[in-house]
């Protein structure tokens, strides 16, 4: 029997780690992640959760401890945000290279300077190439379900990849919603204990991560990580079906299509901006405007095939990025363009950099994007990348 709880995105992540029976939790505080690890400390102290809680001295060490614990054969969980995540950078590469299914919640927050603790995807986008699966959530329920699903998929012997489950700072991390929290038995039935065949074991001693030369095996190891991502893309969808059957709730696929199948004008975005966009789509549809939304949930593995199918028919596609690759454009925009380039149907694409450092992305902001896209659809000249809602004149600033 599940229970309905009104909890924040952060507490949802804490509950998920307990329900998934994470056995080792190295923890380090950072706003706005802190309440996740505080809640876990409370669970452990009360005896509800049987985990080894390590008060590490940094996020870098948190990830190092997760990796070594996972290689010893146990389930691990940690959570971080912004500076904590980028401090982990070296170890993020290590986690994927060592093929450890470490699962982590990351609260998407801006990087300093200037200090800013609000929603921004720069922290996780700059970890794109570390080999981690990256999922972006737009509701607290999705946080819980994604964490369970990630353990299920990542621990499979042919996957063995780490996964980062992303929540927007405050907008999700500190907002309470009704969450359907399954009971322990339900989760146990879906997610068996992690017992990898290959681990640090005194009865079968192996060396992990020894020197590999250019001529042999290093490149093959890297190829296998790509292969595991390809498998994970399929496995996430398959296991989501099993999840739905088990918990009675859909998780869906790597992308979510919202009134976009018959839309001429589609906005692609992620996370909580997508939730706002759904409302805007509904009201614009009521006005008879031909708009839809495609939400990318899985940024890694990147859903190239799904996007081609979902966007090929559009007259124009906009991509709203909550981060920016300096010297170029929004990273999501680059990736979506890349996905469509070799497709036979290639609509014009416009990139919007929005909501940086937690600047509000209001319904009116999104409506403005659709207004702009409609003009592009009508053949008006357009700028490929726009920064939205800058204070002052955009042209002056840019």
């Amino acid at each position, binding site marked *: 029997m599940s229970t309905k709880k009104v909890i924040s995105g952060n507490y949802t992540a804490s509950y998920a780690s307990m329900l998934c029976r994470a056995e080792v939790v*190295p923890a380090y505080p950072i706003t706005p992640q802190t309440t996740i690890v505080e809640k876990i400390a409370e669970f452990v102290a009360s005896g509800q959760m049987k985990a*080894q809680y390590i008060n*590490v001295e*940094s996020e870098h*060490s948190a990830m190092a401890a997760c990796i070594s614990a996972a290689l010893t054969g146990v389930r691990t969980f940690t959570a971080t945000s912004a500076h904590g995540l980028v401090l982990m950078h070296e170890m993020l590469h290590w986690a994927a290279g060592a093929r450890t299914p470490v699962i982590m919640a990351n609260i998407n927050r801006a990087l300093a300077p200037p200090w800013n603790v609000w929603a921004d995807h720069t922290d996780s986008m700059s970890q794109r190439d570390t080999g981690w699966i990256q999922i972006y959530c737009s509701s607290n329920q999705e946080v819980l379900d994604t964490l369970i699903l990630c353990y299920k998929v990542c621990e499979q012997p042919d996957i063995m990849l780490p996964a980062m489950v992303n929540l927007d700072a405050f907008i999700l991390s500190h907002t309470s919603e009704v969450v359907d929290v399954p009971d322990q038995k339900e989760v146990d039935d879906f997610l068996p204990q992690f017992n990898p065949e290959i681990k640090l074991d005194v009865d079968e*001693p192996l060396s992990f991560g020894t020197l*590999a030369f250019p001529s*042999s095996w290093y490149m093959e190891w890297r190829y296998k990580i790509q292969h595991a991502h390809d498998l994970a893309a399929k496995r996430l969808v398959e296991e989501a079906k099993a999840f739905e059957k088990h918990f009675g709730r859909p998780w869906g696929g790597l992308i979510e299509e919202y009134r976009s199948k018959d839309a001429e004008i589609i906005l692609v975005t992620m996370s909580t901006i997508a939730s706002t966009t759904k409302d805007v789509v509904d009201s614009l549809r009521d006005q008879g405007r031909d708009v839809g939304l495609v939400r990318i949930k899985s940024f890694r593995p990147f859903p190239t095939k799904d996007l081609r199918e979902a966007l090929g028919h559009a007259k124009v596609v906009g991509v709203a990025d909550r981060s920016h690759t300096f010297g170029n454009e929004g990273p999501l925009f680059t990736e979506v363009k890349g996905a469509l380039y070799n497709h036979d149907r290639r609509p014009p694409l416009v990139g919007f950099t929005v909501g940086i450092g937690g600047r509000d992305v209001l319904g009116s902001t999104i409506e403005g994007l659709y207004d702009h896209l409609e003009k592009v659809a009508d053949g008006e000249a357009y700028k490929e990348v726009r920064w939205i809602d800058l204070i002052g004149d955009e042209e002056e600033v840019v």
Partner: protein
Amino acid sequence: MAGKKLPLPEEELMDPGHVGCLGCGGCHAMRYTLKATGPRTIISIPACCWAVMPGVYPNTCFNIPHINTAFEVTAASISGIRAALDARGIEDITVLGWAGDGGTADIGIQALSGMVERGTKAMYIMYDNEAYMNTGIQRSSSTPIGAWTTTTQVGKVRDYKRAPKKNMVEIMVAHGIPYTATANIAWPKDLIAKVKKAMAVDGPSFIHIFAPCPTGWRYPPDRTLEIARMATHAKIFPLYEVENGVYTVKKFKKEASISEYMMMQGRFRHLTQEEIGSISESVVRWYDKLLKFELMTQEE
């Protein structure tokens, strides 16, 4: 000594075939340590000479489970291993972190400090070759005063290492660590006894092993043990242990000359007798202080 067999454990957990240099002191250090720990040991090794020495994939010279980890995270890595074993109720395994002086006294000191402060049951060994050897003899904070390295070059405007060696054992004592000691590959029985003591500690332990490096110290490989022995006899590397704050210093009748020790190694050859004289004074000062610590703490 010729022909006399040392009464050491027979078991070899490090097979022949490592790829360290001829005469590598770090190699002896590992071999003796594993003889002490036995096979129920998990070892974590960061970037250092020993990251390469076990061999090239898929080979390994170890007969114990072993992971490579990043340069600065040895102590965090063994914290994770210990936590994982605790999670599964496994108690009879020694968790060993094995790092160089750079990986310990420099880049890894934060993680080490964290682990010791938390009281994690794990053994941390720093094998000290007094520089970053894996990357080709660069200065570390454990490089002794006066030494040439490739980043403390001796040129027209002389610039050997001016700062004294960082004392890791004292830093561990300041953490209130239950057991810490120095050991030297020239005294394997003592080394093994110390590792065994460390294993028995219900908490963190730290051993600093003196491990001469012919390649980096610029001496012929067959003099490794001789140099190791001289370092202790000359009191440059005193052998002592600190158990719950109580110091015990190993005393030797035999003495060796600091100047002779230094002149055997290319890395010190540029020093004048005057400079060696002032280094000698600081060696004696520290040794006298150690004896006072011993007296003071044993009385308490």
